[in-house]
């Protein structure tokens, strides 16, 4: 099962990863090989959104992505979000709105919203943004504060 390396860029740096088995998930690569534990491991079946990352700027579930599938592409995790488009705006909005409680779903939400805003732009209707974020689950906040953060982040711009 031992495979080749997979050259990917993570948060702007080339991550030299060797001997990546073909079935290794990006989630495990960033968490266990690169030690980037900000990407949260939840259901591992694509149902909770806690492991959301950006791949070439687009939101993706790292638990359903094989590392060798994304050879040559650029990954942004929560650790790289402050430097990503809309990253600061989303972080500030989540802080100000208190759009988290336990914090376990938070990196996934932050990454997903930054990706959505980059893709859809600030003019995207709020309702649409909220619906698209529906793939991320939160058990603490009841989403009310998260919805407030989405509004704030959209108003602030990149």
């Amino acid at each position, binding site marked *: 099962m031992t495979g080749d390396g997979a050259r990917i860029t993570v948060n702007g740096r080339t991550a030299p990863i060797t001997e990546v088995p073909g079935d290794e998930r990006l989630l495990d690569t960033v968490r266990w090989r690169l030690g980037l*534990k900000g990407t949260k491991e939840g259901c591992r079946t694509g149902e909770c959104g806690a492991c959301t990352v950006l791949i070439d700027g687009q939101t993706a579930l790292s638990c359903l992505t094989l590392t060798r599938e994304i050879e040559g592409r650029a990954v942004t995790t929560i650790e790289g979000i402050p430097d990503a488009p809309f990253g600061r705006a989303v972080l500030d909005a989540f*802080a100000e709105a208190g759009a988290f409680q*336990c914090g376990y779903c938070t990196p996934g939400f932050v990454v997903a919203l930054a990706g959505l805003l980059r893709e859809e732009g600030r003019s995207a209707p709020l309702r649409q943004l909220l619906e698209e974020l529906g793939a991320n689950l939160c058990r603490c906040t009841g989403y*009310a504060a998260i919805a407030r953060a989405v509004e704030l982040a959209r108003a602030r711009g990149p």
Partner: protein
Amino acid sequence: MIRSFRPDAGAKLAGTAGFGYDLDRPGMRFGALVLAARAHGRLDSVDLAPARALPGVVAIAADDLSTLLDGAHGDPERPPFASREVMYDGQPIAAVAAPTLAGARAAAAAVVATLAPLPVVADLESVFPEWPEAPIASSAPIAAHVHARRGDVDRALREAATVVRGTYRTSGVHQVALEPHACLAEVRDGLWHVTTSTQSPFGVREDVAGILGIPERSIVVDGTWVGGGFGGKGASLVEPYALLLARAAGAPVRLALTYREAFRLGRTTLPSVVRMETGVTDGAIVARRVRLLLDVGTSLPGRDFATGYAIGFLLGPYRTPAFEVEGYAVRTHKPPFGPHRAPYAPQAAFVVESHLNEVARAIGEDPAAFRARHVLAEGDRTALGQEVSAFGLSEVLRRATAVRDAWRRDAGPGRGVGLGLGFWATNTGAGGEARVLLSPTGLEIVQGEREIGSGSVAVGLVAAAERSTGLPRDAIRVTYRDTSAAPFDAGVFGSRTVGALGQAVDAACRAALAALGDRLGGAGELRLELEGDEVVAIRGTARRPVRSLLTPEERRDGGLAADGRHTGAPRTIDESLVVEGGFYPYQDFTGAAHVAEVDVDRETGAVRVVRYAAFHDVGVVVDRPTATAQIEGGIVMGLGAALTEESIWSDDGRLLNPGLLDYRIPTLGEVPPIDVTFVEGFAGAGPFGAKGLGEPPIIPVPATIAAAIRDATGVSLTELPFTPERVARALKRA
């Protein structure tokens, strides 16, 4: 610089907050559990050899315990592994550790268990088909029986002008913390160390000691950030296994459950059936009879209080002259019943509120008006004879009724507006000790408890210290210590943290101020202020930097240390009313009234919640944004329990929906706008009159939604949750 009312914003938004799932050590092994794939069976053999043959694998089962524990024996009623008989689907029968997670999963799969089927009791009602008409046989699988009464209920019901009867069913619901249970264990220097995502480090220490039969002084429990608890992380679950594996492997072992495993291991609310009868004469309740069958799964010792608590909530916050309540905790082949945010209170409120709505309708009165004449207030006595302390239920009811009426006036066709009440009794539990350290530059609160998300520790305790001392929150921080260094506390659950620990923090702050006052002189109240980076003590005209008031020893040790302790108010029920079993007094009475507008699709039975308003009797608001967030979150969790969440077991006791696709929790697109109103002034036993707030918000939700559906359709639902299928069926029947 991140700005937030939450001091944990920085770590949580940067992704640097370390949770149990993130634990890592050099040389660490990954653990995995082997779970029984049958709900009831005779365990003829557990063959670990195929697992042990894999590279770097250790595997352990019941037979290895004595060796691993140097001959010690844990509590025989809570063995970590099944040895002769498996009692529920998912019960651990072995555990393995390997150098990689994939290796551990492969090793777990290699263990061969021979499990001969035995008859399964999965369905509560199949045990007692004649209940409640026929008496329960003494041979029935009953874990606990509780029974209390006052007056001649038979006669009162016979003579009542109107008697209303109803039978209600509630479902099993799971906490679904986004982070499943996870810990890392090491055995070194003769000590059993475990770092874990827990609501109660001291509770885990006590549990591990009991389960493994080792003294508490040899166990050190440290906490991590907790990715959601909701009651599910109040006791130990993964920790004993990780410790045993660490001992066997001679290396640190991380053990983290998958979602599927967390669902199957349970420790949550299980189904119930309730029969209620209420007699009314001249508009007043004259008698009530309540009978409960509560599924407690493979009941664990010490957990039977669940039935007494459940029965207490089924009496509701209403004046009741004559009553009889009887509850049976029934053993089934399911995982043990465990606490799930406000254990059984939302289910009980659904039953009580729905039933009283029918009672009010039977006598032609508005349900809110009927309630207003019966709700308990300060100075009343509960059915069980406890004197009611300050209780704002009638006030929240009054305000919610006004909103209900306003919303009803403009609700469109297909819409309905309902009102529901809930009450909670903060359970302050054992412990509640705090230490503060006042340094020249700030105040430190030393804690073993971790912030589980609600903000009760990271915000609540800091807000308590702010009120006690006058220092701004920026100058106050919480320092987390393991159980060998932290002051004792029971845990972050039961809505007790701000009430119990907050009071301890307040007491510790007062003790620190008193010590300073002796040195400062002057008269009147002493307060602290921040001047630049310096903490200054002020009393009357006296004003000095704290730095100059500390002894050399205190300066060396980082500041003036002071301890505080929570002291609960004595509360009692009238024990002469108790026929059998345990009933419990409440520390505080906390009330809530909710209003919901729903839209019901008569074709599909789908219910959409359009808007929601919540009125909460909180004593005093300690921190407004955190309190608001707590209520919003609790309501949405309650909407899940009301509309979609239900654990489903097959006839042979297997959990059929151990995952998020089939056990649906609310998502962002489907939650209504929520309007939160705090009602202050009915002081609780907590610091500054605060009452607990973690659990009250979830309690009235299913009752409120049921009332709204009734208003929209004329149909009264008697079974939780109100799935489209159930609603559509009820509409067809009507």
